[in-house]
């Protein structure tokens, strides 16, 4: 397994090779998160049935789950796997296409920046909040939001620069579901 095992080649023209190891790492973390909470729910059920329920396992479970969602949200941005209402940009070309793609990424960028700025504020506030029974700081969970936002900003900038220089059109425009479903 190398650092590109889980990197998808779709939209290669919008990607920097230097960020491939990051995409790969994030994909592995997605796998670890689902494996992690599968195992923790399993342990939760087993210990409960054995009469010695471990309450903090539920905190571990929700932690893996929340981190998995926000890491996945970031990596789905790089892989262009998020769900869209329509795929109209893929039928366009030239300046119109560039305008639409840039506009869309600027909207994503704005939301991601809000996730960073306000997510950090929430993180700071949550340093003083604790989750029972093991009194884990809530901030260990909510840190996932600004980190996800920062990664989305990074991937958006990557796509904007590469798309501006090389154009947004690619051979995968006609195969827009291949990444998610297979």
């Amino acid at each position, binding site marked *: 397994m190398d650092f590109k095992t*889980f990197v998808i080649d779709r939209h290669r023209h919008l990607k920097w090779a230097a960020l491939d190891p990051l995409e790969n790492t994030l*994909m*592995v*973390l*997605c*796998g670890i*998160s*689902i*494996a992690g*909470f*599968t195992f923790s*729910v*399993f342990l*939760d*059920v087993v210990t409960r049935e054995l009469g010695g329920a471990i309450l903090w396992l539920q905190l571990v*479970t*929700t932690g893996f*789950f*929340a981190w*998995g*969602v*926000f*890491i*996945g*949200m970031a*990596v*789905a*941005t790089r892989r262009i*796997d*998020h*769900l*869209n*209402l*329509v795929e*109209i940009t893929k039928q366009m070309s030239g300046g119109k296409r560039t305008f*639409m*793609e840039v506009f*869309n990424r600027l*909207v*994503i960028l*704005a*939301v*991601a920046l*809000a*996730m960073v700025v*306000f*997510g950090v*504020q*929430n993180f700071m506030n949550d340093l003083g909040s604790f989750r029972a029974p093991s009194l884990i700081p809530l901030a260990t*969970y*909510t840190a*996932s*939001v600004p980190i996800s936002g920062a990664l989305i900003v990074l991937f958006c900038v990557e796509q904007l620069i590469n798309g501006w220089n090389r154009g947004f059109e690619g051979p995968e425009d006609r*195969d*827009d*579901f*291949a990444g*998610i*479903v*297979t």
Partner: protein
Amino acid sequence: MSNGAILLLMTALFLFFGYMGVPVAFALMAGVLTACALTPISMQSMIGQMFHGIDSEILLAVPFFLLVGELMTSANVTNRMIRLAQTMVGHMRGGLAQVVTLFSMFFAGISGSSTADVAVLSRTVAPEMTKEGYDRAFTAALIACASTMANLIPPSIMAVVYGATGNVSIGGLFLAGIAPGVVVGIGLMIYSHFFGPIGVKKARASLCDFADAARASALPLMIPLIIMGGILTGWFTPTEAGMVACVYIIAVLVPLLSRSHIPKLPRDFVYTGLLYSIPLALVAAASAFGWMLAYLRGPDIVSGWIEIIAGHDGRIIMLLLVLLFIVIGDFMDAVPAIIIFMPIVIKLNELGNIKPLHMGVVLITTLVFGLITPPYGLSLLVASKFVGVAFSRAMWASLPIYVVFFVAIGFTVLFPDVVLYLPKLFLPESVGCFKSPTGAGYICPP
């Protein structure tokens, strides 16, 4: 600016960004953050709401049911169920079309994902159908329509999201979804028999063949029993039942039926890890949108409009909501639709004195119809891509099949006693019944 105007602006911005091609999760948040700028609500609290929207143990069932589908599909265990379906209905008129529907009913009992169902059928049965001369457009339309049963027959991801957001019993929703799921299945089989292509006539499978196929499928078909048995006996929550099904596949099915797949299990986890985050990112954003909608008194405004037309008549309210959700389902994914409109649904349940479980199953049946209607018919889009036919052709082929869904929706609205029979029998509390003070049986409201 009045609340109504901000509400309209927020919704219009979401739709504008969404139709410009911004991913749904970001389009929703862009609308919410703009609304924040016009209200005393801080953007910080709305970003926080994204986290709180997914901070729920119940929603863990979503990745588990997706993982079940991914494991079953990638380990090729599903081929055994396809063979069982072939021995049961392959000899009928339009045999492979019947196989598609029957397999989808089996698969729906294992996975909660319509997309996984489409992926399996498009790779396995669709090439056979093309060889036998079935029109590709019909094949894509039928696969897409049959895949909707994955969200009706338990386990259903839509039911999990609906139950988690609306505080409705997920076990009850699972049981209530069986009736409309079976209606859709039988409807598709009747349609294929009378109006579908004839296909190649085959001999009826012998009893031995059927017994062999049933034996080969016995282990995979244990999964619905594990899931529903665990929930109904009170051993597991729906989330835990999903986990137990995953463990069963990894520890029993794969080693026994597809040993060569063991080294590929980490890959399944990685891809499912990504796969589950996509709808849950929508849940996070839709939860912030729904919160803002409630703050702006959206439920009061919409229920006010509906009250003018329907008064307090529960059936008319339900009918109006069905019409509204048919339109919404055409333009939006079901998961954010459920979360965004939940405050309105709850308000209307109170207005019309409607059982939340009944409303839930009606709306889920309506929203699965949205999976095959343009422009945002996700199952039809994926099926047409995989089968290799233009979306417009697949859409035309699916138009007559809409009748099946209208019948299923009508049935669900008009016959609550039939739809709620199983929940009332196995989970009486889910339909509002409570234990008799004498300790014998349950008292149920009319």
